[in-house]
Structures are given as structure tokens and as C-alpha cells.
């Protein structure tokens, strides 16, 4: 296999486990809403009437109410189809989540964070020196005698602002409440 891997996704809405709508269905509803006609919509999208009708009726069964409303031409002619408020709500929900997912995929910080393993844990071995028991919380002091290496993941801006480079003397700071501990398993 050659070429760079690309991340993609398919989004659909469900109700009680039944599929409601996917990208194609949203396009169909949007086209109906835009043109005011099912016939025009399917022509513009190049899909069959049979397929579109089946898709919409199945969606209405799962949702439990109509997503489109057709009306016959009156005295002045011009019948058509409109999207119901439920249909519009479905379009809105789908698009909101699609926007959210697309922006997540395009977010360089997020992907960089995954690359740099933001779930990285520092593990430091020590011996419990003192325990002070409170009513709800306890304060534990751990004595560390082996020099630990501590990893800090911060923004590049912070690194620049601090002006730190290799071999610089720094202080590592951790809030006591951000630390958790476990008994060491003897190997």
C-alpha cells in the first residue's frame, strides 16, 4: 500500500437503533427545501423517484412523523413538496454534528495531541513517608530517592515564553490534587 492515509467518517442519525438519515438523505431534503419540489430535487441529484420515495417513507416510519408534505396544484397550478418542521430539524441536527466532526478532523492541535500522546503518564516510585487523614481527603507525602524524569506537555507558546532550551535549570510544578497513587506491585 502506498500513499498517505487519510481520515474520513460517515455520519448518520438513528432513532432507537433504526437509521434515520445519512449524508445522501440530508442532500435530498435540502434540495426539496430549496426547490420546493420532489421531482426537481431528484432530477437535480440524479436519483430515481422510486429510491427517493422509499428512502423518505422509511425515514418517516422510523421518525414517526412526516418529513415532507406534498400538495397538489390549485387553481393557479404549481403543486409541490415542502419539508416539514421535523424534516428541517433533522437537517439542522445532522449539519450541526457534521460541522463539529469536520472541524475536529481539521484541528491540528487535536491530531498533534494524539501524536504526542497527551495521555502520557509520569510514573514515579517512592515510599510513603506520612499520611494525614482528613474527613474526606487524605494528604500523603511520598519520599522519592531515585531521580525521576518528568515529562511535561505544554504549548509551544509557553516554551517560547519561558525561553527554555536543553540543559536549562527549571522547576517542575504539579498541583497535589492532580496526583494519584497506587501501591507498587512487586516484580
Amino acid at each position, binding site marked *: 500500500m502506498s500513499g498517505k492515509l487519510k481520515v474520513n467518517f460517515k455520519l448518520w442519525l438513528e432513532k432507537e437503533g433504526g437509521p434515520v438519515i445519512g449524508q445522501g438523505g440530508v442532500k435530498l431534503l435540502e434540495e426539496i427545501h430549496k426547490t420546493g419540489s420532489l421531482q426537481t430535487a431528484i432530477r437535480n441529484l440524479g436519483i430515481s423517484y422510486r429510491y427517493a420515495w422509499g428512502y423518505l417513507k422509511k425515514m418517516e416510519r422510523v421518525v414517526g412523523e412526516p418529513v415532507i408534505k406534498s400538495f397538489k396544484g390549485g387553481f393557479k397550478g404549481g403543486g409541490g413538496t415542502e419539508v416539514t418542521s421535523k424534516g428541517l430539524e433533522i437537517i439542522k441536527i445532522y449539519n450541526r454534528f457534521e460541522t463539529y466532526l469536520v472541524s475536529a478532523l481539521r484541528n491540528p*492541535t487535536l491530531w*498533534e*495531541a494524539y*501524536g*504526542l500522546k*497527551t*495521555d*502520557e*503518564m*509520569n*510514573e*514515579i*516510585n*517512592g*515510599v*510513603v513517608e506520612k499520611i494525614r487523614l*482528613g474527613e*474526606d*481527603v*487524605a*494528604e*500523603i*507525602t*511520598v*519520599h*522519592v*530517592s*531515585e*531521580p*525521576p*524524569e*518528568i*515529562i*511535561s*506537555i505544554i*504549548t*509551544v507558546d*509557553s*516554551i517560547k515564553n*519561558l*525561553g*527554555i*532550551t536543553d*540543559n*536549562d*535549570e*527549571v*522547576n*517542575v*510544578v*504539579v*498541583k*497535589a490534587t*492532580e*496526583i*494519584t*497513587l*497506587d*501501591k*507498587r506491585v512487586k516484580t
Partner: protein
Amino acid sequence: MISARNRFPGRVKKIVTGELIGRVKVQVKIPIKITCVITREAVDELKIKEGDEVTVFVKATEVMILK
């Protein structure tokens, strides 16, 4: 001033930077005393007592650097 009690001097060993996030590895000098505040429940559950050998865990994103 910083209220955190856990402030350990050390030396920067390696900095790796990306576009927005960087990873700083610090060699911390000993001896140090790490203070952690955990729930009373956790202490009872773990049956921790003085003199026990323990491992302390800190997420790398929770570690700050001061110069």
C-alpha cells in the same frame, strides 16, 4: 507565587516541539517529597500505610514548568 507544594528543581533534558504543543523532559534532582491529596476512600481502599512502596502518577499535561 505559586501555591502548589510540589515544586521540584531539575534540568531540561530534551524538548520536542510540534506546531502547537511541545514535550519537555526534565531530569529532576533528588531527594524530593511529593505531596498528593486523594480521597479518604481511596486511602482506605488501597490500605496505604506509612512505609509502603508506591507509584505516583501524574498526567504529563498536568505538569507545569517554571524557570
